[in-house]
């Protein structure tokens, strides 16, 4: 009888201990399928507590790329010429903005390419002199569109305007809404102008935003949020944000990117993926709790049977095993439920 009770107690203890780890195993497995590459063990608990996430503009609500949102030739007949000459020239340049314009056309024969700091780029496409840059630099009127407005000059004559803006993720606004619904407040920080940042925040339903924010200001922003009693996650793939990431309660970076060792790493910083992370983390916490609650139940039942003289060693072993199973199932169900809830 004593031996049977020892087996039952041992089964309950083991199930209690292992039950805490099983939800993490399930969450990690489920998370990998959703692009959550790695989550350090302590990070699950922190992630479950996060109620504010600071989102860097690049890669969270946007794809991390820019796109040409408007092609406006001064003469409508020059639409294709505007796309071709500006695109061909920008193939020689570097940066998100250049890549966005370059996607307008295939590569061409470019000579004498040069970057004019603060103004734009210039060169000769098929021997035609072309300049792409600030409208005033190419003798055109400045405009106030959302995004970056570029003037294009060909053969010494103004050809038209290009407007380049952020490429918003298709599900950005629904993902942001889901985050808010889950009690996580998104805060957008951007290296763009106030006008463009406000526009971007509005487009994806974020109420709080900070434009042209330098790394040290971002760090102060995180501190202020923490002082307000918030648990802050910071999602950024930019190396300049390393200091901010350190200050945050939870750092979220991209796999292979520069982030602190205990940072959560995702394939991309897609805001829907962040929502999944927080939901899974909450599932892990709940699963751990439920697993620990469920773990001793079969042992208690087994002990009652032993006390009634119905016990046996094989039965005690079976109930000990049942402790493990019930802890695991309870933890797993909690995790999976949390993931399912996050989708809604």
């Amino acid at each position, binding site marked *: 009888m004593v031996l049977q009770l020892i087996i039952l107690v041992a089964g309950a203890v083991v199930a209690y201990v292992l039950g805490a780890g099983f939800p993490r195993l399930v969450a990690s497995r489920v998370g990998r399928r959703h692009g959550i590459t790695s989550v350090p063990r302590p990070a699950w608990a922190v992630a479950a507590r996060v109620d504010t996430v600071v989102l860097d503009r690049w890669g969270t609500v946007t794809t991390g790329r820019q796109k040409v949102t408007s092609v406006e030739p001064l003469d409508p*007949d*020059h639409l*294709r*010429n505007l796309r*071709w*000459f500006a695109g*061909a020239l920008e193939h020689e340049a570097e940066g998100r903005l250049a890549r966005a314009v370059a996607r307008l*056309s*295939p590569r*061409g*024969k470019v000579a004498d390419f040069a970057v004019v700091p603060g103004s734009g780029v210039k060169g000769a*496409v*098929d*021997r*035609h*002199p072309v300049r792409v840059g600030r409208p005033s630099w190419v003798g055109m009127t400045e405009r106030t569109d959302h995004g970056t407005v570029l003037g294009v000059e*060909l*053969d*010494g004559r103004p050809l038209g305007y290009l407007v380049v803006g952020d490429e918003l993720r298709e599900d950005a606004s629904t993902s942001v809404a889901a985050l808010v619904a889950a009690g996580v407040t998104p805060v957008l920080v951007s290296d763009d102008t106030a006008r463009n940042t406000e526009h971007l925040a509005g487009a994806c339903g974020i109420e709080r935003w900070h434009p042209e924010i330098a790394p040290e200001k971002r760090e102060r922003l995180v501190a202020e949020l923490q002082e307000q009693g918030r648990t802050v996650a910071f999602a950024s793939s930019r190396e300049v944000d390393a200091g901010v990431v350190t200050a945050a309660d939870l750092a979220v970076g991209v796999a292979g990117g520069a982030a602190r060792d205990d940072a959560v790493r995702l394939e991309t910083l897609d805001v829907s993926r962040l929502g999944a992370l927080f939901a899974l983390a909450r599932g892990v916490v709940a699963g751990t709790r439920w697993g620990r609650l469920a773990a001793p139940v079969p042992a208690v039942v087994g002990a009652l049977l032993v006390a009634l003289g119905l016990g046996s060693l094989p039965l005690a072993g079976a109930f000990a095993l049942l402790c493990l199973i019930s802890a695991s199932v309870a933890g797993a169900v909690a995790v999976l439920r949390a993931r399912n809830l996050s989708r809604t």
Partner: protein
Amino acid sequence: MEHDVTQTQQSPGLPGSAVWMLKSLEGEVRPVALSVARHLRDGLPAETEGFEELIFTAVHGAMSHFIDLGLGRAAPYTAIDDHFRKVGFKVAAMGQDRALVDLGINMATSELWDVLRRRAVENELSAAALNALNEMMSSYVEHLAKQVTTGFGAGTEARDQDNDVARARLIERMLSGASLDEIEMQASLGDWTLPEKVTVMAVELRDGDRIAADALSPTALTRRRDPTQVVICPPDDAEAVTKELRAAAPKARVSVCWPVPPEDVPAAWRWANRALALVNARVIPAKPVIDCLAYRTEIWLHAEPVMRRQLAQELLEPLLAESANSREILTETLLVWLETRESAPAIAAVLGVHPQTIRYRWKRINELFGESLRDPEFVTQLLLLLKASVPLWVAGDQSDFDRYQQQTG
């Protein structure tokens, strides 16, 4: 008759004042003769190289002899007559016309008479004395002209016996556009078989070089003729002759015209030289041997450079406001389109650019020229003009436009 006048002549009985004036001229014979010889060398339309000494000797001797006669001295004609016969002989041997000698005598006589007249005015010579002097001079010049005629006849006879001289004359006749009959006659005198067609070459030599006739096949005629050296041969021998020319003068550039009838040699010679000029203007690629047939259009279109320039300024006026780079690009594209009438991708392939670049250029061309491009006459003129001019502009010669801009300010 000449035998009579070669004897010592009596004094013509000039008035004393004229005799006195002639005597005063004795010391100035040499400088005046030198001046006359120099003026003949500069003024005659033919080479007098190796000939100056003979001219000077003849003029000097004639002046001295004339003064001796005027002063009534014993002055045999023999040496003077011999000089002037030699002059006639040499001119004939060179293959030149008799008219050249007459021109020379007229120039010399005119200059010497001017000297006498000036001196007569200085010495207040009477009109009668001057007339007497004039008569004496006229009869003296007439006598000398007869000696030249005698020498020229002998020279012509000797020349006709000399193959080289006859061939040199044949080249001159062909280049000067002589009739076929005359060319045939000269060819037979030079023992040269006149083919139905001939190939004319212009050889551009460095540093005043010449290619000797014996460096080429016997069927090739050659002679230095500014601005190049001319070579004429039967078309079948053209290739071999070209190789011989390249071997004789490796640095020379040979412009080979297509075969032409002998009476068209002057035109062929002009074309071959124009091809060389177009090579120097970078319109035609600078190869050692220029096949004129391949550049017939360019040779034709550059026949009238002034007209071409005026046409460029007139037809291409819409382009004058463009930059040199834009002008070059647009005209190059326009020329390819006029030549091929192909689609944008095909023209782009020819010019090595993107099809959209061609569409842009075509739009610009239409903006600049508008309805003119639908006028067949305008288009034809434009095609010819661009064919002739675009290579010049591409080679960097913007003088057509610079000149226009200077004119219009």
